[in-house]
């Protein structure tokens, strides 16, 4: 399975709709301090179902909604859409495109959609589990966190290998 595109709208500093298309291989994201690179990483973790605000550097989940600037008002909603290419369960050997989206209104919980149809977090998690993606502890190495692999307790480190086994 592979990522095809990621669309952000109202997510953290991405007030306006913005879209990244992913080639196969390696995509580099560059720019000055504070421009929004790590926010892109956060949006990908978020649309895949991240539940902990702290994993996205926030105190509460509403912190991911665009909070306004001196020139623009805060927004009421954040939305991220991820387009994936996945094996088609109906056609062995073939693939299909799936769009996972997550929306958060400031005073309510998250809404999930798979190909436009509303679902629960669990439906997204099940879908990802089938692709071998799940919540792979090592799909995201956050800024400043690369050393954690070495400094975790021996029993926690085990989990990393267990996920692969």
């Amino acid at each position, binding site marked *: 399975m592979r990522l095809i595109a990621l669309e952000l709208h109202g997510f953290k500093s991405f*007030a306006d709709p913005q879209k990244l298309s992913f080639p196969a*291989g390696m995509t580099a994201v560059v*720019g000055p301090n504070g421009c929004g690179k790590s926010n892109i990483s956060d949006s990908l973790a978020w649309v895949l179902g991240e539940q902990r605000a702290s994993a996205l550097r926030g105190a509460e989940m509403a912190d991911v909604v665009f909070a306004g600037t001196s020139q623009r008002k805060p927004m009421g909603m954040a939305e991220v859409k991820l387009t994936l290419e996945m094996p088609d369960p109906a056609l062995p050997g073939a693939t299909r495109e799936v769009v996972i989206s997550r929306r958060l209104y400031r005073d309510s919980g998250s809404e999930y959609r798979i190909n436009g149809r509303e679902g629960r977090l669990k439906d997204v998690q099940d879908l990802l589990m089938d692709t071998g993606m799940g919540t792979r502890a090592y*799909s*995201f190495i*956050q800024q400043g966190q690369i050393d954690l692999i070495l400094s975790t307790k021996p029993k926690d480190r085990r989990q990393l290998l267990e996920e692969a086994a």
Partner: protein
Amino acid sequence: SEERFKEAFDFINARFTEVFREVFGGGTAHLTLQDPKDLLECGIEITAQPPGKSAKALTLLSGGEKALTAISLLFAIFHFKPSPFCVLDEVDAPLDEANVGRFAAMVQKMKESTQFIVITHQKPTMVAADTLYGVTQEERGISRLVSVQLRDAEQLV
């Protein structure tokens, strides 16, 4: 199951030693099961010894050496079971110029089986990319994306 874990452990351990030696140009590194009789529960220890040096606590390694050792272990796990994608956020920040180049080469080797999204301020890493996105805030506090060529990226770092 015990068997599957042992199989994964042995494979990843061998790859870890291989990748470490390649990126450090020698030395040795390996994983150890704290209690081989308790395969289902025991912890895993890491030993890493850059070339010529004596193996001591991981904590004594330098910032750059720790980052490269961690990346070597991560990629060894990927060799066994690739993640479909992997986001690396400025893992090359503590690396000197030569090691940034080695890191970029490591990613290029793995990108057939894993889609990498690498956030970086380092030019050798940008050079290795198939696609380059620049993130800008022309309007303060509002992020926008720009697809860039390498020479523009150098302005954006």
